[in-house]
């Protein structure tokens, strides 16, 4: 006797615990197998791009904090680079080094969260996530020393940073840079060879190289598919041309590769931080600019390699104190464009891990 079945549509989200933010997926299931996927965005839309049109150039820095709230420093950096390009100025040397250190610490922090929640989605409940929270706490302490806040830093300004590093920052950073490799080794010992993890991630959610390129993916999701593309190498900004680091790439682009690429990127980020600490010069930390910036008419696009991928700000100026138009290239949003290709054919339990391994952030997707 054969059972008569018919496909059903299930709504996952918007407030399912393993959707990263308020993200809704309408999935057509046949039994447990996914046949069709329709992502629904917009639950966290705050209109950041439109709000930017009525803020001054410095005030927009506070908006960028709230895009990808797990990587606020990278957003600050991308926006400030864009304004600097628009105005044709450059930040002082010391500011460049400070910003690079901040961006790399932010990458470590964001990858810690990405990995922690990915493992949590796999069922490694709380233990790895809490370990990673512990290290993220130290990074947030460093950010608190420098900027005064723990999530929404508003630390960078067009033409430099808000304030010089406080005296207690460098010793704490040195201590962190010494401790952190041990912790990363610990995460690897904890889970890298875990049979359950390997069964659930190896060969699951494969994103082929060509598809990833055609979908204009960026960040760890692209590098896991075997494409050595990183804006820090391809179009160096700040001081990345003066530091040595390697690009970890995956082999086939499955969940396990994305996991390993993020782990290795944290090590490389620490390498960059250490080199920046050695090279950092003394000097001014902020260019001498008026409080209200009036860039000349024109437009500029600046991009950085954020923790999630290429993060870019496109600004159009009409010569007044606020931009005429501000458009944001959000990596999380574009990385989600291939969700259907990755999910169709897999089962519901794999859906959670594949979505988790992409490490997107709804604050950035909906903007």
């Amino acid at each position: 006797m054969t059972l008569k079945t018919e496909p059903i549509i299930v709504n996952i989200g918007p407030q399912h615990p393993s959707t990263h933010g308020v993200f809704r997926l309408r999935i057509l299931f046949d039994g447990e197998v996914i046949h069709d996927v329709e992502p629904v965005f917009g639950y966290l839309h705050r209109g950041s791009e439109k709000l930017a049109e009525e803020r001054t150039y410095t005030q927009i820095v506070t908006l960028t904090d709230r895009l990808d709230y797990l990587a606020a420093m990278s957003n600050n950096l991308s926006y400030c680079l864009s304004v600097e390009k628009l105005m044709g100025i450059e930040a002082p040397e010391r500011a460049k080094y400070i910003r690079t250190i901040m961006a790399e610490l932010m990458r470590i922090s964001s990858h810690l969260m990405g990995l922690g929640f990915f493992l949590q989605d796999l069922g490694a409940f709380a233990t790895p996530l809490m370990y990673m929270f512990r290290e993220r706490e130290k990074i947030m302490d460093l950010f608190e020393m420098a900027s005064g806040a723990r999530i929404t830093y508003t630390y960078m300004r067009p033409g430099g940073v808000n304030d010089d590093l406080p005296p207690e920052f460098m010793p704490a950073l040195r201590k962190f840079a010494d401790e952190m490799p041990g912790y990363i080794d610990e995460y690897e010992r904890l889970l890298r060879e875990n049979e359950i993890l390997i069964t659930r991630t190896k060969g699951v959610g494969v994103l082929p190289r060509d598809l990833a390129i055609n979908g204009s993916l960026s960040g760890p999701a692209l590098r896991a598919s075997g494409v050595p593309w990183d804006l820090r190498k391809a179009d160096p900004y700040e001081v990345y041309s003066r530091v040595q680091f390697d690009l970890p790439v995956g082999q086939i682009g499955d969940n396990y590769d994305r996991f390993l690429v993020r782990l290795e990127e944290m090590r490389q980020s620490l390498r960059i931080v250490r080199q920046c600490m050695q090279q950092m010069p003394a000097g001014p930390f902020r260019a001498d600019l008026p409080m209200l910036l009036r860039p000349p008419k024109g437009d500029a696009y600046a991009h950085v390699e954020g923790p999630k991928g290429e993060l870019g700000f496109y600004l159009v100026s009409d010569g007044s104190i606020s931009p005429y138009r501000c458009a944001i290239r959000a990596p999380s949003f574009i990385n989600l464009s291939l969700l259907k290709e990755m999910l169709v054919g897999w089962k519901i339990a794999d859906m959670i891990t594949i979505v988790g391994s992409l490490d997107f952030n709804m604050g950035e997707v909906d903007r």
Partner: protein
Amino acid sequence: MYGEGILKGLGVTLSYLFKKPVTVQYPEEKAPHYPRFRGYEFVWYEDRCTGCASCAKYCPLGTIKIVTNPELQPNVGNKYGLEIFDIDTGRCMFCGLCVEACPYDALFMGSGFERATYTRRSMMVHIDELRLADKQPSAFARPHLHGVEFGERTSLTSPEAGR
């Protein structure tokens, strides 16, 4: 051997049995925060404030309301008396741009973080509360305050306090 990876992982978690916890039992014990922490109770020095409203102009959300009255403080030169100086901390996001904008060192971020209230209205900080507040300025955008302890409130009433 199958299961070796799991045992390795369990070894890591087992080693934590003999380590000290990293958490802090919050209400009894407080985690330290740093001098630049941007927090509650804005610190405002009335004698330095000229009523220029730079802070209100620089605020991204327009949470600061200033009404000046020249008649309140006559014969003091380039300084207005203030009738209203309200900060709506319910809408404030503590970005610190107002403090950065203040040209006269009159406004500081505070360093407290425990100000839960029952009503939205009580989040509005009025001029009288700002006058009387326990002044614990944060070093945000005021680098000269690094390493300064603000235990005694009396020391902050002098004209040079917080500078």
